[in-house]
């Protein structure tokens, strides 16, 4: 499978995430769209890792080139899990104070 197909797929998913962040006002949906963007990047990292591995496999059959990409995806998942727990706690706190998850309420942070 050409690498371009994976890039197009991941760009589409990433753009859908961006559109979601721009068009929705529900803070939880915005947060879910950020997760979607993270997953698009993860898929692209794995695709690139396999691309480099396929190139290096031609010269030596036991090479481990490209494993860094998958390790990186693993760490992105770790950080995303930590980020979701803190972010949802912040959203719950915001709901407790304003009885709404509308992100437009957050503009009162500016004064």
């Amino acid at each position: 499978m050409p690498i371009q197909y994976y890039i197009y797929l991941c760009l589409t998913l990433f753009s859908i995430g961006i559109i979601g962040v721009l068009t929705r006002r529900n803070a939880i949906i915005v947060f879910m769209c950020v997760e979607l963007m993270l997953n698009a990047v993860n898929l692209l990292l794995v695709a690139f890792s396999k691309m480099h591995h396929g190139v290096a496999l031609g010269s030596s059959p036991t090479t481990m080139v490209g494993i860094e990409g998958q390790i990186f995806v693993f760490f992105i998942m770790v950080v995303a899990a930590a980020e979701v727990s803190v972010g949802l706690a912040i959203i719950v706190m915001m709901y407790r104070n304003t009885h709404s998850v509308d992100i437009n309420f957050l503009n009162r942070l500016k004064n």
Partner: protein
Amino acid sequence: MSTTDILFYFLSALAIFSAIMVLVSRNPVHSVLWLILVFFAISGHYILLNAQFLAIVNLIVYAGAIMVLFLFVIMLMNLNAEAEPQKHMWMKLAGVISGGCFLMVLVSLVRQATDMQNKSVLMKTGDIGLIKNLGKALFSDYVVPFEISSVLFLSAMVGAVVIGKKD
């Protein structure tokens, strides 16, 4: 057209359709369920790329843990389609147009990039995605970031408890 191609197109179409449905659906619970479907499609892609460890971790961590957390929070707040705040029509249109422009610019960039020409992704074979090799790399070369991530988890846990505490 081989089975791998058919699976690739099917999983891609499923992922994109579900991602669009995440945005379109009014009810936040439906959005969460569509997002779980996106994660399943991406896990299918990982299996297609023979990244078995990441496929399972993606299912367990994302579709299992994180999405259940989202569902709990949504059900805790009793959100439904009627309480959903809506943006103005023009704002939605502007968001879609700007996102589409972003996509168009990047796609045209990739089409012209000569680095990407004639490169293909190794499907179904290659053993860097297996648990054995990833575990060896994780516990030998990347053991310090691994331990630091445990500290990160601890601080995130403390932070979530402190923020979520009723005072």
